[in-house]
């Protein structure tokens, strides 16, 4: 939680702060959220009989006097602030009863929720809910007047009970406009005007007082955008390799009325054709992008492919005055470029980026920093870590689990697309599309589907997956439309473009870079002992057959064997260094990581998350024969524990695509997905958990905590921010 303080209240707040040793601005507010709640009580108890936080009377010692003083101010809302909390949510049928999210597809119902155990509200109290156009923090401070975009605010009445009884459907939420012009969506902030004065003021509850929006109401990114599109079927790029000079161009017909727009370059795969990406070029241009798809010199290899990507990027910038009669002249924003590559072209764009990284002069008319987004569709990995390395570029990977070409087959690491993703140190997201094959993502006529009968989704469906997610990647990275980032990790049951069938299985991974300041508990890189985390804390476990090793299937077959504990991991060539942990269970068991005191304050973070997949063809996975679930337990310094199930928001760990071959049995490569659990959920329903003193993280399986049997491969256990 976060509070914003208005200038005119600063003096009042200062004069109210009395207690020495109290972290907040008023008595009992030990966590500084300007409210006196169970969270503060947890802090007091955690520091009982010490000189730490919880010393309400300022005598240097936490004791009964502090407790009495604390309760005298119980549920107080400290002066001088409105309180930032998360309000927008999707309701859940079971605890924690609300999944707090920001992004809603236009037309969907919008709900808000207030947890009385975390936020001081009184049963029977009436307040006004305002949905307002999004404002930045500066705009809120200069203009706190509340203007509801619906024309009138909505009265809500708090009920006795828990968050379950205090969920409110936003009236007309399904009619909120999502039209943001060039943006796919449109932002709103939410305010509960507690004193009903029509102004964001002391004691009000606000979601979105910072520079993020409370709500991102988005048009369907799979739908056609706002702009009619003009297509130039082909033009000739000067300076491109002989035989590979042709390219196709798409741009908004009304480009003259727009400012400079980002450039998107599509590099096809081997034996493919630059004219096979009309579906993507048209789609992206309808959302305001200038898009080219070029002939790609893929037959000799990846180096030549990267050369044509570099040549065509430079050429369209250099020739903009003449191509298409000069229609795009002056309209290319050379500081914002996205490269999309398919197959060998997917590795080619990574190689091209790597070449600029090594030799900046390789880029002509733009720079390395211009390339703000790499999207590889089923890329090969011929060159390995030394030459096919996306470094810190923002990286997206799409891969069809029925790919009959770049298949992930364990005997050939060239077919391991995920190597490239693991090398990325930027923001990266990957998506496995069950039932899609290699050539479903272009308009060619080759069918390379390999998978169980009845699971083929077809080329139309695969393109319906590619279009919205690639658009979301471009908008997120090139135009800071952060609300679309939730498409990268929320399960389909929670957020799904309409053209994608509910039955299509998408396995999503989202990994934030070190620059976003996650608190990493264990990434399994720097500490090979299974009893010590990479962050230095002790690790204890009751789970079985623990193995911390490179994410590499070492025996050339997907058949399970005990000598190959990371069976199904095809993410590390011989030169890569990505390590992960694997273990299994057949009864209620767990693994627990101690959190060092220096890392224990996670109150400014939003999620605990982990990348996790099922061990392919392991006997336990075979027995489970479905999605696997687990629970995460957080324990604070006072010993208070709170447990959240991965299953609360439909967050099961996918069963690997049941493809056969490469040994006996069914199940292809291990499919890692990111499961994010909101820290607020651990505080729901009055758990009293103190997020400032987290002492341990525990993953529990079996019994009431999750699936009764299974095997996991895990990585990147960490606390992350929004």
């Amino acid at each position, binding site marked *: 939680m976060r509070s914003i303080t208005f200038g005119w209240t600063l003096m009042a707040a200062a004069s109210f702060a009395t207690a020495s040793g109290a972290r907040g601005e008023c008595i009992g507010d030990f966590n500084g959220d300007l409210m006196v709640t169970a969270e503060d009580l947890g802090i007091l108890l955690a520091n009982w009989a010490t000189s730490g936080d919880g010393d309400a009377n300022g005598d240097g010692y936490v004791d009964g006097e502090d407790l009495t003083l604390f309760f005298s101010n119980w549920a107080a809302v400290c002066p001088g602030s409105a309180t930032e909390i998360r309000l927008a949510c999707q309701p859940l049928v079971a605890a924690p009863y609300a999944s707090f999210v920001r992004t809603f597809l236009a037309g969907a119902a919008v709900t808000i929720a207030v947890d009385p155990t975390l936020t001081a509200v009184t049963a029977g109290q009436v307040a006004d809910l305002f949905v307002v*156009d999004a*404002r*930045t923090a500066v*705009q809120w401070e200069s203009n706190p007047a509340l203007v509801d975009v619906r024309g009138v605010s909505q009265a809500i009445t708090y009920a006795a009970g828990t968050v379950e009884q205090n969920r409110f459907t936003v009236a007309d939420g399904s009619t909120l406009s999502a*039209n*943001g*012009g*060039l943006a796919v969506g449109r*932002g709103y902030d939410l305010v509960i005007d507690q004193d009903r004065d029509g102004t964001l003021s002391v004691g009000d509850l606000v979601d979105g007082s910072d*520079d993020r929006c409370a709500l991102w109401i988005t048009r369907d990114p799979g739908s*056609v*955008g*706002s*702009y*009619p*599109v*003009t*297509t130039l*079927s*082909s*033009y*000739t790029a000067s300076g491109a390799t*002989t*035989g590979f000079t042709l390219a196709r161009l798409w741009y908004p017909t009304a480009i003259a009325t727009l400012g400079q727009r980002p450039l998107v370059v599509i590099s096809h795969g*081997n*034996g493919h054709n630059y*004219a*096979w990406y009309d579906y993507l070029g*048209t789609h992206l241009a309808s959302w305001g992008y200038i898009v080219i798809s070029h*002939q790609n*010199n893929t*037959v*000799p*290899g*990846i*180096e*030549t492919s990267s050369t044509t990507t570099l040549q065509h990027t430079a050429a369209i910038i250099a020739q903009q005055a003449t191509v298409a009669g000069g229609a795009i002249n002056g309209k290319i924003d050379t500081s914002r470029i996205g490269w999309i590559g398919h197959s*060998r072209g997917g590795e080619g764009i990574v190689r091209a980026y790597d070449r600029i990284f090594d030799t900046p002069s390789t880029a002509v008319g733009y720079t390395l920093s211009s390339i703000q987004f790499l999207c590889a569709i*089923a890329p*090969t990995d*011929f060159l390995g870590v030394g030459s096919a390395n996306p470094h810190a570029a923002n990286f997206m990977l799409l891969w069809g689990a029925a790919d*009959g070409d*770049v298949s992930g087959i364990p005997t*050939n690491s060239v*077919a391991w697309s995920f190597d490239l993703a693991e090398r990325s140190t930027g923001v990266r997201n990957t998506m496995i599309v069950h039932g899609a094959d*290699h*050539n479903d993502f272009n*308009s*060619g*006529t*080759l*069918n*390379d589907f390999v998978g169980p009968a009845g699971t*083929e*989704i*077809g080329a*139309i469906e695969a393109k319906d997956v590619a279009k919205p997610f690639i658009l979301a990647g471009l908008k997120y990275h090139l135009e800071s439309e952060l609300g679309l980032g939730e498409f990268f990790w929320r399960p389909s049951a929670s957020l799904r473009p309409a053209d994608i*069938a509910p*039955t*299509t299985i998408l396995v999503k991974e989202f990994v934030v870079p070190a620059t976003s300041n996650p608190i990493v508990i264990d990434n399994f890189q720097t500490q090979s002992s299974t009893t010590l985390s990479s962050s230095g804390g002790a690790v204890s476990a009751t789970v079985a057959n623990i193995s911390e090793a490179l994410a590499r299937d070492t025996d050339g077959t997907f058949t399970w064997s005990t000598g190959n504990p990371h069976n199904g991991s095809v993410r590390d060539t011989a030169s890569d260094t990505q390590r992960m942990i694997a273990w299994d269970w057949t009864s209620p068991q767990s693994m627990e990581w101690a959190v060092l005191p220096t890392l224990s304050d996670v109150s400014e973070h939003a999620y605990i998350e982990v990348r996790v997949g099922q061990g392919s063809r392991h006997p336990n996975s075979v027995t489970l024969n479905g999605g696997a679930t687990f629970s995460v337990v957080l324990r604070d310094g006072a010993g208070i524990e709170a447990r959240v199930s991965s299953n609360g928001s439909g967050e099961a760990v996918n069963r690997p695509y049941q493809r056969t071959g490469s040994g006996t049995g069914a199940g292809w490569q291990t499919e890692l997905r990111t499961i994010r659990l909101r820290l607020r959920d651990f505080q729901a329903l009055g758990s009293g958990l103190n997020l400032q003193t987290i002492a341990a993280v525990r993953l529990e399986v079996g019994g009431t905590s999750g699936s009764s049997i299974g095997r996991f491969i895990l990585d990147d256990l960490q606390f992350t921010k929004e």
Partner: protein
Amino acid sequence: MTRMKRRTTSLIFTTRIALFASLTLAMPAGMTAAAQQVAMPVISVMPALPVTPSTAAGVKVISMQGVVLAESYATDFRSEHPQVSGGWIIVIEADKAVLAPRALAEPLVLASGAKWIESVEWFNHGFASGHRVCFVPSPVGEKGALARDTEGMRIWFGTPRLPESVDAAMLEQERALADAAKIQPTPPVTTAATVQLANRDALIASARELIAQYAPDEVQSESATPAAPVAPVAPVAPVAK
């Protein structure tokens, strides 16, 4: 999922103006003028890659034309990027399973004589047509003639790997593998008189003509046809954040 798989192609075929009039190549047996029109999209199943080298690939040379270039170029089909100043532009017919385009390594196309072996360039895949247009490099002698002897020449599919990674040592390994696989000399074909071309651009143009003739589904045209606009929605101003 009940929607049917549907694939389309936007490949546009236009007959190119002949730039290489001196070529007198025979039409492959059974190919008619009508067959040169745009092939209808046909969904083809990706065949498994046969083991190579093998005599099973059934490589047959359909046509062969000597070429001498006035301006040499550095080939991308060898890691050493040697200069190429001439060679033979050929059309081969082979097992479509070998010709199928793949992202993973494809079989090298190799050619050898008694004293030489080369990594052959190719300009199309030939999966649908069964025909691949290739170029076998050859040094050019002092008198402007191609220096290599084609008598007993073998053309075959070698180990799958990226041509840009191939060096001289690998080529010798490929020769040994071909010998072990009992790759035989390719049946001789009438070689058209050697022609002079200006440079690689002209060589590519020639190859395109042959692709149009023997593998029309792989022509990539330069025509410009504006597409119909998609339905517009009135744009509004972007939001503040």
